[in-house]
């Protein structure tokens, strides 16, 4: 291939200008483009936090897998929890394009050096919580994530497109679950209302601190990493959700919630920001439990990784021998089987 330009300019002014022009033109920044160090760091932090949230987010709902009330609900919940794992993996992939290492990010999560969404530090006390998480928590996530499909960083935007396609299923299954319960007994309706009471305010906190207390937002918006302010997205979520609550027949636990006839938007009461700070900094009901479980998943399952690695090494050795055959390959991938001494094995099974 032709050699790319080898010399980097003495100063980054021209590179910065090219970067700024790309962002301003709404073109995407791709992994090998020059980018400001702050842009890279902000993206790694944001994407890692997002990935961690998906992975930790499997826990609150995963708790109900064995207690789902029917095979249908269990199959749905399994599919949803599996999706969350998938979303985490798409996002770790995007973070890796920025030079981050996946295992290193997991370690940072477990050591408390990187955060995940505060919402997953609340417990799922009843089965109605599964429905409310789908409706409110995934609904809030969709509000946050749809604009990120236009994020200036290509790999992140592409991951978000995939995530958003799947997230819609999450919200709808939750709402349908709640509609079903609301058609049931008084006890079931009370269960739904109780879950709404517990999850409403934490859901509003998912959008992060108010704009007046969000120091990084302006820069992130200038970079096209973020598209709307925290308060703007929160307002959008409230406006979308209130009619859904009315249809469902539940009361959102905010006496100040009212429609502003002039703007057509809903006014809502003050959010307890001290609670958000407390939960983010480790003082939520389930912080310790979530991280303990993630650490156990890493450490207790290490043998599976090791076994798969050992098995792969054994199979690679078998394939390298001329007698081996049978796997379906487009072409022999000799490079992966090149051994330490640099000697290529005889060309493996070409079958075309």
């Amino acid at each position, binding site marked *: 291939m032709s050699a790319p330009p080898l010399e980097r300019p003495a100063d980054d002014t021209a590179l910065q200008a090219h970067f700024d022009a790309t962002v301003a033109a709404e073109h995407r920044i791709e*992994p090998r483009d020059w980018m400001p*160090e702050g842009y890279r760091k902000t993206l790694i932090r944001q994407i890692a936090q997002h990935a961690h949230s998906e992975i930790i987010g499997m826990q609150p709902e995963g708790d109900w897998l064995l207690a789902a009330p029917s095979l249908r609900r269990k199959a749905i919940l399994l599919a949803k929890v*599996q999706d969350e794992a998938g979303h985490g993996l798409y996002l770790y992939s995007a973070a890796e394009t920025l030079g981050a290492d996946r295992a290193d990010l997991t370690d940072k999560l477990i050591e408390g050096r990187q955060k995940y969404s505060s919402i997953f530090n609340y417990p799922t006390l009843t089965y109605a919580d599964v429905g409310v998480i789908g409706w409110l928590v995934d609904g809030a996530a969709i509000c946050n994530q749809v604009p990120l499909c236009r994020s200036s960083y290509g790999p992140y935007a592409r991951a978000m497109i995939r995530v958003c396609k799947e997230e819609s299923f999450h919200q709808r299954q939750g709402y349908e679950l709640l509609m079903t319960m609301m058609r049931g007994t008084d006890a079931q309706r009370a269960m739904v209302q109780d879950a709404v009471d517990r999850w409403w305010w934490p859901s509003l906190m998912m959008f992060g601190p108010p704009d007046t207390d969000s120091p990084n937002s302006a820069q992130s918006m200038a970079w096209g990493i973020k598209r709307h302010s925290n308060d703007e997205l929160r307002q959008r979520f409230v406006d979308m959700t209130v009619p859904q609550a009315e249809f469902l027949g539940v009361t959102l636990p905010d006496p100040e919630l009212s429609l502003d006839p002039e703007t057509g938007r809903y006014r809502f009461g003050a959010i307890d920001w001290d609670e958000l700070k407390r939960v983010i900094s480790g003082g939520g009901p389930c912080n310790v439990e979530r991280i303990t479980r993630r650490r156990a998943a890493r450490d207790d399952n290490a043998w599976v990784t090791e076994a798969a690695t050992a098995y*792969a090494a054994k199979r690679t050795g078998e394939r390298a021998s001329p007698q081996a055959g049978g796997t379906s390959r*487009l072409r022999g991938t000799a*490079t992966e089987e090149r051994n330490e001494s640099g000697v290529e094995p005889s060309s493996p099974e070409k079958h075309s």
Partner: protein
Amino acid sequence: MSMTSEGGHGAVPTGPEVPVEVAPEKLPAATRRDWPLYEVFVRGKRGLNHVHVGSLHAPDDEMAVHAARDLYTRRNEGVSIWVVQAADITASSPDEKDPMFAPSGDKVYRHPTFYEIPENVPHI
């Protein structure tokens, strides 16, 4: 020149001769990244090309195909999967100013719209 993962978005060349944004000493130690990175391509349905959909880490080719099925085709997104180690992909520089693509820039006569044909000529 060696190749580096782009985590689902196409492997790219790296090496001392290629300008990169992160100095090698700033990169985290890759010692625990034991499983190679694979890029995944899915054929959505018969008649379509395989299209790059993302990446994953796997211990070997076969596990990579299984993992790709679980990760990228949970909703009938494909009828066929290719996986290839990211390190085995050779790529051009993605920079739009890459001189590699300059030869096609000034050859407008390769496009049908270059030729003016009177409107009353049928079927052309």
